């Protein structure tokens, strides 16, 4: 029974693999270099930039691909020379941990602040119980308001 499952799983994964179009080199180069920063024109990726160094580095990346290096190995190659700066997605390190978890910390702080605010508001609302006196006062206010708007309408017509 168990071997049956294994065979089935293998068959499914193999057919899924065969069905997937093999990403060609060009596509791979474009995807990878879109994640790498051009050092000369810093707000462009290696894929977008036409700076001479970007062209050289793209060629270098292509050479490394042809020699059978994985994407991670190519990134390591560039980081070794140019530092984490070439990566648009910086790795999690002690120096970048604030960058990575900072937004979530701020979000949590915001949620806590909002919760506290909502709770304190609810508490003040509950402090005032509805009594007959207050209900009567409110009714009078409503009736009075109607009269006021009535007089206004009269004023408007004259």
């Amino acid at each position, binding site marked *: 029974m168990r071997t049956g499952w294994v065979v089935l799983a293998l068959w499914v994964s193999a057919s899924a693999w065969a069905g997937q179009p093999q990403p060609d080199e060009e596509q791979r180069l474009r995807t990878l270099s879109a994640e790498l920063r051009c050092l000369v024109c810093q707000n462009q990726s290696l894929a977008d930039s036409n700076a001479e160094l970007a062209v*050289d580095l793209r060629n270098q990346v292509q050479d490394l691909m042809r020699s059978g290096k994985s994407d991670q190995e190519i990134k390591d190659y560039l980081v070794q*020379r140019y*530092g984490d700066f070439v990566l648009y997605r910086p790795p999690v390190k002690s120096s970048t941990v604030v960058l990575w978890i900072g937004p979530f910390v701020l979000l949590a702080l915001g949620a806590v602040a909002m919760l506290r605010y909502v709770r304190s508001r609810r508490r003040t609302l509950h402090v005032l119980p509805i009594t007959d006196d207050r209900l009567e006062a409110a009714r009078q206010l409503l009736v009075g308001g109607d009269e006021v708007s009535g007089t206004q309408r009269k004023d408007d017509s004259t």
Partner: protein
Amino acid sequence: MIRFGLPLVVFLVVVGFLYKGLALNPREVPSPLIDKPAPAFSMARLDDPAQRVTHEDLRGKVWILNVWASWCVACLQEHPLLVEYSRGGNVPIYGLNYKDQRELADAWLLKHGNPYTASLMDPDGKVGIDYGVYGVPETFVIDKQGVIRFKQIGPVDPGVLRDKITPLVQRLQAQS
């Protein structure tokens, strides 16, 4: 107190970060190569292409590697300073002639002076990539063990030469 104090503190922190951010130079990318062994190379000499120089040949002495090219405008800015510094003969300066043509490079050195013990040719920029070069000129100080101890991106100015490079070279030369 919290009502006004907290926003004030947040405001001051933000101002602090922005002020610091203004003072940073985004062009100055810290090199990961500092305190790492200088990448291996074997390059032909500009004055005699039949002869090659490798990183091993320079082991055992403190040396300066200056990346330059005849097409590089900013190189002219630092060049007189290098020529003068080389007259002192304190430290060999090797040139990395980056993505240049031999005739143009030769003519440029004749015209502007040659501070280099030797210039080594890197016509396709491969050695430049190994050294993380992204803006010419760049200058490296390499110690006796072949470890990169300093990198200047962009032209060397008198202040950098006086306050950083000269004392560093002296200190490194004093080490065994």
